[in-house]
């Protein structure tokens, strides 16, 4: 078991890429801009949770940008090494192919977690200083962590593609396809279905009710699962209040997205000639 050596090497390599430095700067700027836009009016005050919950951070930033960045950070993880030939160097050392795949998932997860951490924690300094914002440290750190988990889910999807793809062009096509499926397309389909089911209910051949279909659709999409978990968390009732079943399912769904794509990639990679 040498995945930790692979993960460490991969993280050290990835954080030296211009992408990660650039993404950290972008994150700091965007979170700072969001905080500025929802700043309290003079004489008012509110909690840092309000900033997190604002549409700027939750929808615009986290659920549209984090998946995109995670896919960019990770799509080349394995196929890039295959194309450059460094995979031969890597596999000349005593790593199993599973060590390579899971080392990559962990290394690139670190590489997406780093800009997320910097992006959220630097602006937090401002929240701590400004007296009109009550800084809720536990919620803020927890939300940062959940955002990192969402990033990891998309890193895992991208590494899965990267492991099974024969060229980086295919890996990037897979990543872009997943992004469009889960981010714009999924929302559009859900939106239409909500009207359709609202008007006449689900067609009778479906074994599920319209509500159940919509719940499924929310769950399957990692960004949907993330929203379910993070909303409950910010409201202080994760696994205790509201639809607890849904929250547990959403948590498991995120776990499935983190584990299954690399495993599927590994099934193919184990049999492949380099």
């Amino acid at each position, binding site marked *: 078991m*040498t995945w*930790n*050596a*692979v993960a*460490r*090497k991969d993280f*050290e*390599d990835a954080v*030296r*890429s211009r992408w990660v430095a650039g993404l950290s700067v972008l994150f700091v700027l965007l979170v700072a801009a969001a905080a500025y836009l929802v700043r309290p009016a003079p004489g008012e005050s509110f909690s840092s949770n309000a900033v997190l919950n604002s549409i700027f951070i939750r929808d615009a930033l986290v659920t549209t940008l984090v998946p995109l960045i995670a896919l960019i950070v990770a799509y080349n993880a394995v196929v890039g*090494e295959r194309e*450059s*030939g*460094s995979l*031969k*160097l890597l*596999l*000349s*050392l*005593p*790593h*199993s192919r599973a060590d390579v795949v899971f080392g990559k998932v962990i290394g690139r997860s670190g590489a997406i977690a780093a800009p997320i951490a910097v992006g959220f924690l630097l602006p937090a300094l401002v929240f701590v200083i400004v007296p009109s914002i009550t800084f809720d440290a536990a919620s803020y750190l927890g939300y940062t962590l959940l955002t990192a988990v969402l990033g990891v889910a998309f890193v895992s999807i991208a590494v899965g593609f990267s492991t099974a793809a024969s060229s980086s062009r295919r890996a990037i096509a897979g990543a872009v396809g997943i992004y469009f499926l889960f981010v714009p397309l999924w929302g559009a389909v859900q939106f239409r279905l909500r009207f359709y089911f609202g008007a006449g209910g689900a067609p009778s051949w479906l074994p599920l009710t319209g509500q159940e279909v919509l719940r499924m659709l929310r769950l399957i999409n990692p960004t949907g699962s993330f929203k379910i978990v993070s909303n409950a968390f910010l409201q202080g009732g994760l696994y205790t209040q509201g639809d607890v079943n849904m929250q547990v399912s959403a948590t498991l769904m995120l776990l499935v997205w983190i584990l299954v794509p690399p495993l599927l990639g590994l099934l193919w990679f184990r049999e492949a*000639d*380099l």
Partner: protein
Amino acid sequence: MAAIDLDGVTKRFGDVTAVSDLDLTVPEGEVFGFLGPNGAGKSTTINMLLDFVRPSAGEVRVLGLDAERNSVAVRRRTGVLPEGYGVYDRLTGRKHVEFAVRSKEVDADPDALLDRVGIADAADRAAGGYSKGMRQRLVLAMALVGDPDLLILDEPSSGLDPGGAREMRDIVRAEADRGATVFFSSHVLGQVEAVCDRVGILREGELVAKDSIEGLREAVDGGETLSVTVDAASEADLEAVRALGGVTAASTDGGTVTVSCEADAKTAVIGALEEADVTVKDFQTEETSLEDLFIAYTEGTEVSA
């Protein structure tokens, strides 16, 4: 115990047979030179030892272990300089060696290794800026981590200047003196004859010769290379020549027939060619060198050594 044991190994890529029914045993502690022209199947064979590719048929055992099922255990005790590798452009030389040390879970000093291969002064530079020769030295340093029982070096001298190639040979010899088995490939005989106990010559996926350098020298000793200028000769015309006693190898490019043979077989060779309706215009002889023999082995279609 054999360090490397190939038994009836065949590797096909689609319709192309890269390695065909290869039997090869390299005993522990030996320095084995794996020779052959580019594209002969040397790298494919090495890739099977490392489980980079899997044989279509046959059995591959390295250090007594199944090369596919126990690949991690094999690579734990093996140092490798693979063919067609790339380095991590953004990481320094030292980071590369540190990665090898951590991967092999051993205690080793990266700086000492970089010093041994002669790039200690470049330890803190990103490997992306290294020359081909420096990369070759860097990967050799990674291979030497943990004093492996087996060194597998695929074309180790490529990219090195003559001085670098000599340093590489010195390291190979030192590793052999330590007790390591060294298996390395080359398409140039001159790079291996000074250090190898034995060589195997691979051509079009088949082992055409396997002998000690002394054995090869003996085969050559007193032998001559006969160059016969002819009107037109085909592979079929050479069958009769090869069947003659005293002939080691024969090849032709159509206009010239090159034959490695004992000095007293010359007349029989000319006779056999004329009998095959090949018009002999001219011929000359010279003493065969090892290089001539190697060329005869790797360019002819069949040899009887």
